[in-house]
Structure formats: C-alpha cells, structure tokens
C-alpha cells in the first residue's frame, strides 16, 4: 500500500493546475525547478500577470499517474513561500483555452481542403505565402490536438502553442 514512488514515468492523464504566485524575482524558476526536481512532467506552462500586477497566474498541465502523485505536486508547490494558492481543476467546471499558431505546407492543390478544416475548427488564417499558410486556432487542448492531427498529413512546418489557461466557471475563484 505504498504511495506511488516513481514519479518519473510520463504516463498518466493530464491535469490542469492553477497556481497564483507573488510576482517576485525568480518565482517562475522556483515553481518550474520544483517540478523538474521532483520528476513531475509538465506538458505546458503558461505564465502572466493577473488583473493585480503584483500577482501572476501560472497554469500548468501536468501528468500524474494517480491521485497521490497529483496531491504531492500540489502540496510541494503549495509549500513555496511565493505561492499564494494551488488548485487542481481537473474534472471541475472550467473554461479552458489554448492558442496555437501552425504553419502548414500547402499549395493551390490542397489549399481548399485546408481552409475547410480551418472553417470546421473555427480557426483563422493569419498569413499565406507561396507553399505555406499560418493558422491561428484557439480552444480547449483536445480541440487543438484534433486539428493538428488533421493538418499533419499536409506537413506541419512549424508550430507554437501557448499552453492551456483556465478559469473556473461561476463565482468560484480559480
């Protein structure tokens, strides 16, 4: 009945953890370093100031093999002095969004098909040049993953993703 003690495996489902931190020097390194040191895998990490410039929000998508590992992550992060709160919002009512810029290979022959995908996913074309197109897509992580799978066959030249950010629905704070 021992707790999971091999944190290094990258299996497990993704959890979105929202961390409010004081906007002090080094705080990002502290949180990110802790994840690395304890062997927790981060899929993505998005950081920016909140409406209060003294406070930043870090939204991390982490993989945890089980509930115990996730609790460990939250407790360890919660111990950092600059951390104000840590909340795991997996399975809660949240609005989740991520933005991706995708540069795909495309020419006259398949441009129409690509544009059709863009329409279905409510994405946007933000740049077109000879042989390539840059698409902007916003949505939950799964939606972006689905679109990327479809675009894959045309050849994705480059991509940049912001990492997921979330806010709790209703009056409950994130």
């Amino acid at each position: 009945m021992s707790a999971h003690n091999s944190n290094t495996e990258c299996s497990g489902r993704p959890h979105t953890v929202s961390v409010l931190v004081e906007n002090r020097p080094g705080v990002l390194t502290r949180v990110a370093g802790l994840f690395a040191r304890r062997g927790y895998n981060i899929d993505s990490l998005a950081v920016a100031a909140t409406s209060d410039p003294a406070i930043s929000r870090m939204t991390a998508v982490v993989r945890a093999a089980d509930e115990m590992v996730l609790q460990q992550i939250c407790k360890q992060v919660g111990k950092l002095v600059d951390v104000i709160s840590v909340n795991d919002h997996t399975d809660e009512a949240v609005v989740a969004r991520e933005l991706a810029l995708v540069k795909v290979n495309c020419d006259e022959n398949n441009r129409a098909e690509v544009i059709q995908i863009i329409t279905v996913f409510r994405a946007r074309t933000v740049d077109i040049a000879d042989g390539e197109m840059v698409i902007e897509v916003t949505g939950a992580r799964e939606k972006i993953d689905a679109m990327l799978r479809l675009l894959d066959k045309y050849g994705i030249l480059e991509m940049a993703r912001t990492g997921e950010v979330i806010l709790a629905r209703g009056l409950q704070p994130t």
Partner: protein
Amino acid sequence: MNGAEAILQCLKSEGVEVVFGYPGGQVIPLYDALHKVDIRHVLVRNEQGAAFMAGGYARATGKVGVAFATSGPGATNLVTGIADAHMDSIPVVFITGQVPHPMIGRDSFQEADVTGITLPIVKHSYLVQTVEELPWVLHEAFHIARSGRPGPVLVDVPKDIQVAKLTVPLEVASERLRGPSSGLDIDSAQLDAAAEVINASAQPTLYVGGGSLNAAAELRAFAEKTGIPVTWTLMGKGAFPEDHPLSVGMLGMHGAAYANYAITRCDTMIVLGARFDDRVTGKLATFNPEARVVHIDIDAAELGKNRIPTAPVQGDVAAALRALTVRCEPRDRSAWAKRVTDWKESFPLVAHKAMDTGEIRPQHLLDKLTQATAGRAIVATDVGQHQMWTAQFYHPAEPRLFLTSGGLGTMGFGLPAAIGAWFACPEKEVWLVTGDGSIQMNIQELAVAVIEKVPLRIMLINNGYLGMVRQWQELFFERNYSETWLHTVPNGSEVISPDFCRLMEAYGGQARRVTADADVEAAIDWAREVDGPVLLEFVVHEEENVWPMVPAGGDTGKPILEPEGGE
C-alpha cells in the same frame, strides 16, 4: 544607518547572539558595521565550517543559527552546509554578499548566482532588490527558517544595498511575514480518526523522527499512558529516554534488529515527525505493508509522500500528542511489549570490548563515553562507521545532545557542528566522535577551537580506512578495497599521514594516542579534565564492521545479523 548596519540590527532584534562567518570583498561593509552591535562573530577557516557551526548551534538549541559569507567562492563554500540543513530541517539563516546590482549578470569578479545554485536546497531565499525591503526580508527570513517545518533560508545582499542609506523603520509588522503560521490548529477529525486507529491496535509501535525533538515530555506521557513501545530514527535519537522500559531502539540500516522487528511486525505504526526515509524503510514495498499507519507531521507534503497513511494528522507533534493522550485509552499491551523485549534479549546489540590482543574495538569506546558522561554531554559525529556506533552505543539523556548529519550524510560536519553547539551551550560538555577520513574534511576549524578556547573533546576513531565504504566493499564488492585505505602504499611501504596528535598540538591543542583497550578509560577521564580542546586518537581494530545491517533497498524486517563469533 546603512544597509549593513540594518542587517545587524535586525539580527540583534531576532535574538542572535553569535554569527559564524568569513569576510571578503562583497561583505566588507557588513564586517565594517559588525562591531557596532553586541553580536559575537566567530571567524571560521572555511565557509563550510561556518555553515556547519551555524547548523550545530541550531541543532543543539532549536534556535536559528546564522552564517555570513562573501559572494562567489565564499557563497559556494556554504552550499554543502545549506544542503545539509535542508535535508535535516535545521533552521539557519545564511547571509551572503553579492556584487553590486549594476554588476549582476555580467560575470563580474566573484559573482556567482547563489540564489540560483541553492534553489533546490533552501526553504526560501532572497536576492535583496532595495535597501527598503531589507528589514522585511531579514525578519521574514528568520520567521520562515523557524516556523512550521524548519529549514535554511538564504539572503543574498548586493554590496550597493549594504552601503545604501536606510530610511524606513527596522520594525516590521508580523502580519507582513509570510511562511507557515506556527500556532496551526490541528483538525480534530484527524485526531479522532488517529485515536480510533490507535485504540483499536493491540500491537502498535511508535516510530519517532527528528520532528519530535521538541515533544519529549509529550511523547513520554503518551507512551506511558498507552504502553506503546518506542523506536526512533537516527534524527529522532534523544526524543525518548533510552533506559525507559518502553524504549526499544534505533530503526533502519544499522538500527537494532529488535527495533526493526518491532516496526515490521507491529499492526499499527505511529509515525511522529519522520518521513519514511529509505535508510529506515529499506524497500518500501516490504516495509510492513499490512500495518495501519498513523502519521503525524507538521509538513502536509510528508503525509502520503512515501507511504499512504491510514490516519494522517497535520500538525506539530507535541500538540498532536497532547490531544491524542487525552483521546487514547490505556490498554493492556503487555503481551506485545513482552514480544519486543524477547527480541531485545535474543538479538542484542553488542558493544564489543577488546580484541584478544588488547586491540581496541570501537564499540567499546562509545560504551565508555556513555558511562563517563552519563549521557549528559553533547556528542556530535561525523559520517561513517563511527557515526553508526555512536548512534548505537551513546545514550543521550535528553533531546539535542546527539548531533549528526542524517539526511545528507556529510563527512566534515562533525568538527564545526560540535564547535557551533558549544557556542550555543557553553555550559555543556561537548564531544566530537569522528573518523580519520571525516575529520580531515574540515580539520582547519581546529584553529577556531583553539583560538576561541572551546573546551571540545575529540574522540578520533582511527581505523586507517574510509571504514563505512570499506565495509560495503568487503560485503558487496569482494573485498576490493579500492581507494579506501588512507595509508596509501605507493611502493610497498605504508605511509601514515597525518600524525593527528602532532597536528592537534601544532594547532595549539592537547592530544594523546591510545592503542590499548586497557588505557581507554584513563584517556577519556584525562580528556574530561584538561582545559581547552583536546584530541584522543584511538587506534582501533581496522576491519571492524557495523552490525546489524539492512543492505540498501533490502527488507528492514530481515536485517543481516553479526556473523557468529563476532566476525
């Protein structure tokens, strides 16, 4: 007042009486201001010495220790001591100089990113940005170091801040200080659940860790009311009187076999301020997986880190035990206690006396030390076999008398830690038990002992080897004593270096070499009588091993016992 003076005033108001440190370019303003306040400064010989002295001071008292170092190499020399304090949850505030702000990030002379280097091994750290925040930073640093689960805090102060004029008050409202709050209320539902598990148990064992050192009275009251046998970790040694009828022994790799039996065969383990360290549990999966676990710790992250508790209790061990003593009923556990006592009689820890030749066996030395001091002396150790023999055979009468580097296992800890402990408790007798390997890691601090007239007694157990590593080589690497023989034999002739007694005398202390068991007692008596630092070099049987032993990753319930005939 400038920033440097403000630092010292803040230390003063935090109750600091002594600081261990070493000057350098980026702390000259701090040292310039030093003698304007009534704080004693101990000039060490290597910053690592300062870190361990501050750690020894904190371990002996529970109060916050303080160390100073300059930027760059001064700061990096602290690193081992910071890591050591981190692993053992020791409250120390480290104050380092840094190059002036405009020079940071330019690879300036003696610039090192010490906040970056130490990030994983501090409880918290600061790179001070403005002189105005200095008082707040310092007060918060002390608060964080000592509150909740204690630990090291680093404050890196650029030189321009030390010389800048301070215009804000030195006092800081306590509401502004972040960090764990000390008077944390314990959830009564958790206490009820824990009491229920304990009351239902016929065969429980207490597993007492370093987080229990402030809870000795509460532990005793709880154990006596409930009749539960007490085992402890290396760090928990001293929390419970070892001559008490309920006292069992130390757990883990070199713990007593009967203590390991008592923890691995109990139906419920009650874990107090301990963390299921691998040196105690061996292989986690075989560490009494059926037992129910009541785990009390002030650090929520320890509850479920290595072992899922049946009943977790987050809170201070002393407060939790007070509440549990009320909730737990006395119960006849004498049958279980008797089983434990039987193990104790069948598988005793043996403090071997002499070899037939009269050669000294090291265990005997520690036995003699307990007898001579009645367990009232502070005994610091280094790391290795001598550390384990001390843990097995020195019986401290109270908490905070046995000082050892547990989590990091740092050779070189002992000498400076013993010196630091004496500055904290100058009225106490202080001993260092060390090895011929370990003492050479910070031997330069002998100068501090001599100059500061520290009446330190050193028991140097000279076995010619890096003994603990040699033991592993003997047992697990077919006696391939690769690089563990300290008297290297380059061309067939043995070279003994250094001559520890003459070295001690060169530093200005007194020394005696003892080679016969018959002379041990007289030597210890002599050392207890002379003034100032004294070194006893005991030349002992070289290939002595520490028994019993649970090999790394092994089954704690099945320790390897000493081979028949005492080897």
